[in-house]
């Protein structure tokens, strides 16, 4: 019996060992196989992400333009040791475009945040027609930005509905006045993207446990205290994500401005994207665009990294 059992144990152990060895082999081979399975995707990712970046980096160290009459891979013939980055550092047009972009971000995103937050708070509780209003509030977000651009282009004409309804003369120009043109763009962007802020923030608010809110109410907490002490702290991550998302999108704003003002009057509404567009297709200065593009990528990465670190910190 003992012998039997020891044999059985040995046999079992041996079986288990074999099985472990088998699964270990399978695991090892499987991991190898898995690597082969994902290899095409990784290769594709490298091709569509890394390759263009390297190409951009390469071009940014040259004077190459399509007017050179040589293909881009021969750009090394006009290698310039990073002079584009030096030009970029002292290019007033670039810094002015960056400043205008920052202005739009700093005004439009907070406006969208507070409006979105207010709207989201209104939509926490059920009320008659909530679904209909919900759809109405979300509508601007669904409109193609180019169409929004056209709508606001027409609205802000001297003889357009905005001046008519405000009783302003036709000579009160929105889109051809350098300051008012930027304001018009911010208004249009806020109109379109407040709903996205609203949607994200509403999702965050609805995620706050209702029992906590109920308990706070029972303990005599006011609406403001509930909002400030319970809802807002629990939404920090959502808020950070919403703001980062909008900041990054706002940094890239293009179609709206392109339709409304084309960056004008003069360069009064020329943002980084329009600056890049002009340098790419009007000036055909593609090497310089490579340098600006990389600088922009770094700025956006820093914004995103900062926002996401805040999210991680809150979770931690």
């Amino acid at each position, binding site marked *: 019996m003992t012998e039997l059992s020891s044999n059985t144990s040995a046999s079992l152990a041996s079986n288990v060992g074999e099985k472990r060895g088998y699964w270990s082999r399978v695991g090892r081979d499987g991991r190898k196989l898995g690597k082969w399975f994902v290899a095409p995707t990784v290769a594709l990712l490298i091709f569509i992400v890394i390759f263009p970046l390297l190409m951009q980096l390469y071009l940014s160290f040259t*004077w190459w333009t*399509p*007017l*050179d*009459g*040589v*293909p*881009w891979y021969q750009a090394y013939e006009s290698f310039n040791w990073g002079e584009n980055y030096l030009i970029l550092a002292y290019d007033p047009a670039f810094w002015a475009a960056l400043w205008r972009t920052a202005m739009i971000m700093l005004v439009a995103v907070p406006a969208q945040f507070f409006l979105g937050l207010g709207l989201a708070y209104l939509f926490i509780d059920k009320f008659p027609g909530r679904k209909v209003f919900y759809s109405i509030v979300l509508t601007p977000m669904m409109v193609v930005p180019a169409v929004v651009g056209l709508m606001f*282009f027409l609205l802000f*004409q*001297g*003889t357009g509905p905005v001046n008519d309804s405000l009783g302003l003369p*036709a*000579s*009160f*120009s929105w*889109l*051809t*006045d*350098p300051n008012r043109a930027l304001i018009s763009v911010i208004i249009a962007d806020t109109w379109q993207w407040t709903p996205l802020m609203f949607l994200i923030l509403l999702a965050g608010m609805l995620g706050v446990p209702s029992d906590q809110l109920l308990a706070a109410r029972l303990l005599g907490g006011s609406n403001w205290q509930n909002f400030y002490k319970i809802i807002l702290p629990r939404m920090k991550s959502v808020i950070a994500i919403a703001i980062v998302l909008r900041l990054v999108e706002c940094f890239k704003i293009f179609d709206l401005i392109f339709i409304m*003002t*084309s*960056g*004008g*009057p*003069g*360069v*009064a509404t020329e943002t980084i994207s329009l600056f890049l567009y*002009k340098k790419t*297709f*009007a*000036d*055909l*200065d593609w090497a310089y665009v490579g340098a600006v593009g990389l600088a922009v990528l770094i700025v956006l990465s820093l914004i995103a990294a900062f926002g996401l670190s805040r999210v991680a910190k809150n979770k931690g």
Partner: protein
Amino acid sequence: MTDKTSQQEPTRRAFLQTSTAAVAATGLGGLGNFIATPVFADGLAAGMTGGPTGFEGAERFQYNGEMSEGRAIEGIKALQAAGNAPQKIRILLPEGTIDQLKQPFRDGATAPIDVWTRETGVEIEMVGAPVADIFKKVIQDVTTTGGSFDIYTGPWNSTGDLVASGGAYDVSEFVEKYQPDWGDPERGLPTQELVKLLYTYNDKFYPIALDGDFLTWYYLKGIYDKPEVQDAFASEVGRELVAPNTWKEHDEIAKFFTGKDFGNGTMYGNGILMSRFWGLPSFYMRLASMDTPNHHFFTEDGEPNLNTDLAIQCAEEHVRSLEWSPPDALSFTFVEGWSSLWNLQVPSICTYTAIAKFGDGNKADGSKKSNASGLMATHNPIGRKHGDHINRRSILHYSISGWVSSTSQNAEAAYLFLQWLSSTRTFSLIMASPTGYLDPMQQANFDEPLVASNYQQYAMETIPYTVARSVPGINFGGQTALDNALDEEIQAALTGQKTAKQAMDAAQGKWEQIIRRQKRKGIVEAIQASRKTWPTIVDPI
């Protein structure tokens, strides 16, 4: 360059004798590929071997092997016989021009492209692109060596950029071989300078003109002639109100009309475009007339000429004229500019000649095309008095041209198609179309009644007069960068962000920088070649 033999003008009687056959030919057009020669040839006037049929006056557009179009057709047939002709030629075109080539100008007529296909069997595939984006697509195709097209089209101003990029084929050998009639003094452009301007770059043939965007002055003569307008002008300005000859007179008239209502709502006196891109030629033509015979944009050495006293004075005048413009003038494209005139909001505009095609006269149902129908007229380009003469100046700006792609496997066939399309008979047929924005520029176009019915008889003398006095816009490598740099500064001055002097100084600096960078690509030589195409005509006061 010109027809080698005198043109054989068919008589109306000869045409009538063959009209029955022409009708039959039109009806059987769909069978053209099977029984091509016998059917459509019956619709041709005596001595003609090709061209449109099926409408009264078709003989004026027909040709034979002695003519430019005929040589192109025979060239294709020779290529076919040698097995070197393609089945299809692919062309990138602005969307708004496709119907002008593809649709018959009236029922029963033959569409230009159908004539080509019928006679050669070579299919033309037209790929449309928005006019504002077309050159971006061209450059994309060139830089990716896509080779998607045999023929590119786009703004004439982009010729230098395309040549520099290596995207355009030098067609000089084909021009020599097939002798187009572009420079025929009777039917084509009146001077060799104009041929050089529209068809060459750095003394080689690259662009093939398919458009005549020589900005021409249109004004509301019907309003000028109103007694109450005449009286008001006389009492305010102290002279008779007539079409202006000089910028000074233009500005006086602009000031007079601004804020007044002559029964059509408040008017603004300055109708010329002032906005970014569209307003730039307005500035250029004013600048060109600042000196006699011209104020060039560059010196003979290729140095920018933007911060001279005269250029600064010009910028100041240009900026001042904004106060007489409609409130949103800084955001107007040419469409809003046209609408302003059609809605009697401005008294005049200097623009593309299709403004009359789309806005004057009556529609097919007899209704007016616009409020300006019947009130419009043209006047000569305006300039500046210098001693006992005026240097009237306009500008060639945009103007769609065709280029044979350097990557085309069918360069000769592509050229032959372009020669056929741009020769004076076919091009006149294209101009007969009520659609599209390819505009006339050849003498044969202006002599053609069907073109006159579109573009209005009153413009038929003014346009060639304007053509002869037009300076070229910038068309050498770096053109877009140069235009943008100046444009930005002018807009900054117009919006009060800079004074005219600051703007012109800044533009001068930017241009110098661009020229420095482009020097190794032969920009100075291109500037010198361009200067040679400037007109020197001045007119007595």
